[in-house]
């Protein structure tokens, strides 16, 4: 057995141990789906960021930086700005409001916010989540299949199964606790990786000046902030493409549930700071890795695998195992979160509603676990033919951002938003994204823009045409702007030294 494989197996064993500890710590269904709302800011933050950043971080972004050079920084700006917006303007209000309404999932929250007793809102939300998350999971699986087969030489299907098998195992047994803590571990690993890899490799390839010189020789365009091909297409592709990523943030349920799980809303600012340091280091580290590829004087057949080629060329075999573990961390932390959110939607929003009776916690948990396995089997079947990872992932990002994102933003910030407004917004956003993408209009402008805009407009118009929400809901929304009673009590207990 080669040493790269040994390091990689050690990594997988650590994940399973965390899963087992989480399994022991999980007492109730609330623990299973939201860790009993008891996460500290470090775990909340790194878990949110690690779930957010998928194979895109260490395969897609270095690949983009290799191909387009300095202009890939637009992407980093879009993602960083979106992250900051989400933490500062969505996280705390959402956390408080979901405590007031005792909601554990996004569809729960929307149902409570819009006082919907018809189940329609819940079902539409969960269909959107399940459809786009299955696309996301299979995109990540394609990434992991490519990575493991390129590194260890296994066949593609077997590679798919290794990555997926371990994630499914720890997600099924340990639920949210396992997902959040493995995310934390993986988040730390990614952080160390994106800092260490450029620090080790830049001197190895001959310094930053050498990299820049090689980039210029390959094409002076690589050193330009905007590629030479000017005009609307380049502008919409680079600048607007980056902005498109940022407006999708409030619609990503796997990130939003992290906000809902933090113990104290007042600690959100600490989470925001940790998240921003992490995200800036990670994105710029990833871009540097792509640029280093130019200085290394090696064959780059697939730009998305540039990190693996660099490791194989410059590092010892056991370090290659560490690098694969770091890239797999980015993939697995996202897949586990997608799986848990999609499975909770299937269990709570389909099964529990179809049987239309109060299921006990034990049954709900078992249905949740079966759903994780079902969702992963569908994603596996979709991933088998392989394909373009990032086009698909970006499409799912747009679909969620322009349906759930607009509804979440308006539900928190515009009291007048009504149930019918929200339902229309969800459907209009989803259909616009799918149609725009299928008609091939994405080459002119990314599908998230028309999706987001039309969804927003339709929510406003339909809300104004329907009856306003009840007085109780208006006052609950007002409450979520300020600290809750429970926060004052926690603060008092803290000051009295009881905690």
């Amino acid at each position: 057995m080669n040493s790269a494989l040994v390091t990689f197996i050690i990594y997988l064993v650590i994940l399973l141990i965390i899963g087992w500890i989480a399994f022991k710590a999980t007492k109730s269904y609330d623990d299973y789906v939201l860790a009993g709302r008891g996460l500290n800011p470090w775990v909340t933050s790194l878990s949110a960021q690690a779930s957010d950043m998928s194979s895109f971080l260490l395969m897609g972004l270095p690949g983009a930086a290799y191909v387009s050079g300095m202009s890939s920084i637009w992407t980093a700006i879009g993602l960083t700005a979106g992250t900051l917006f989400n933490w500062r303007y969505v996280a705390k209000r959402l956390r408080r409001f979901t405590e007031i309404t005792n909601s554990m999932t996004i569809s729960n929250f929307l149902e409570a916010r819009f006082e919907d007793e018809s189940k329609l809102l819940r079902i539409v939300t969960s269909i959107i989540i399940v459809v786009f998350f299955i696309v996301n999971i299979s995109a990540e699986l394609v990434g992991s299949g490519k990575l493991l087969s390129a590194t260890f030489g296994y066949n593609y299907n077997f590679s798919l199964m290794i990555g997926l098998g371990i994630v499914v195992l720890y997600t099924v047994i340990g639920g949210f606790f396992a997902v959040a803590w493995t995310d934390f571990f993986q988040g730390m690993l990614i952080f160390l990786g994106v800092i260490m890899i450029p620090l080790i490799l830049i001197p190895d390839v001959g310094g930053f000046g050498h990299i820049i010189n090689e980039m210029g020789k390959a094409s002076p365009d690589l050193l330009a902030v905007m590629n030479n091909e000017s005009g609307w297409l380049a502008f919409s592709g680079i600048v607007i493409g980056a902005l498109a990523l940022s407006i999708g943030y409030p619609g990503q349920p796997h990130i939003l549930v992290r906000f809902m799980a933090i113990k104290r809303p007042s600690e959100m600012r600490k989470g925001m700071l940790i998240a921003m340091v992490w995200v800036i280091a990670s994105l710029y580290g990833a871009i540097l890795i792509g640029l280093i590829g130019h200085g290394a004087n090696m064959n780059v057949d697939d730009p998305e695998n540039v990190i693996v080629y660099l490791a194989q060329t410059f590092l010892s075999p056991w370090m290659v195992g560490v690098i694969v573990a770091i890239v797999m961390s980015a993939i697995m932390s996202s897949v586990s979160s997608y799986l848990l959110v999609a499975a909770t939607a299937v269990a709570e929003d389909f099964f529990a509603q179809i049987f239309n009776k109060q299921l006990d916690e034990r049954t709900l948990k078992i249905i949740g676990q079966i759903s994780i396995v079902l969702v992963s089997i569908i994603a596996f079947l979709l991933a088998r033919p392989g394909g373009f990872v990032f086009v698909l992932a970006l499409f799912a990002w747009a679909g969620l951002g322009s349906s759930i994102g607009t509804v979440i933003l308006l539900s928190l910030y515009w009291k007048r938003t009504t149930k019918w407004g929200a339902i229309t917004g969800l459907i209009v956003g989803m259909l616009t994204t799918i149609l725009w993408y299928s008609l091939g209009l994405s080459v002119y402008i990314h599908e998230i823009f028309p999706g987001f805009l039309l969804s927003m407009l339709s929510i406003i118009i339909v809300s104004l045409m329907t009856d306003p929400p009840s007085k109780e809901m208006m006052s609950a929304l007002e409450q979520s702007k300020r600290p809750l009673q429970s926060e004052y009590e926690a603060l008092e207990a803290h000051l009295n030294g009881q905690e």
Partner: protein
Amino acid sequence: MMEYTLSVGTWMWFVGPPVLLLLLTLYFFIKDKEVFK
């Protein structure tokens, strides 16, 4: 053979945005401290 280097503008482009966004985060971090007042 021509040597390529980064212009000052590109350097600023590389370093500027993350520094500005981090400063903005710090500003929010400090501003949000007064939450219970």
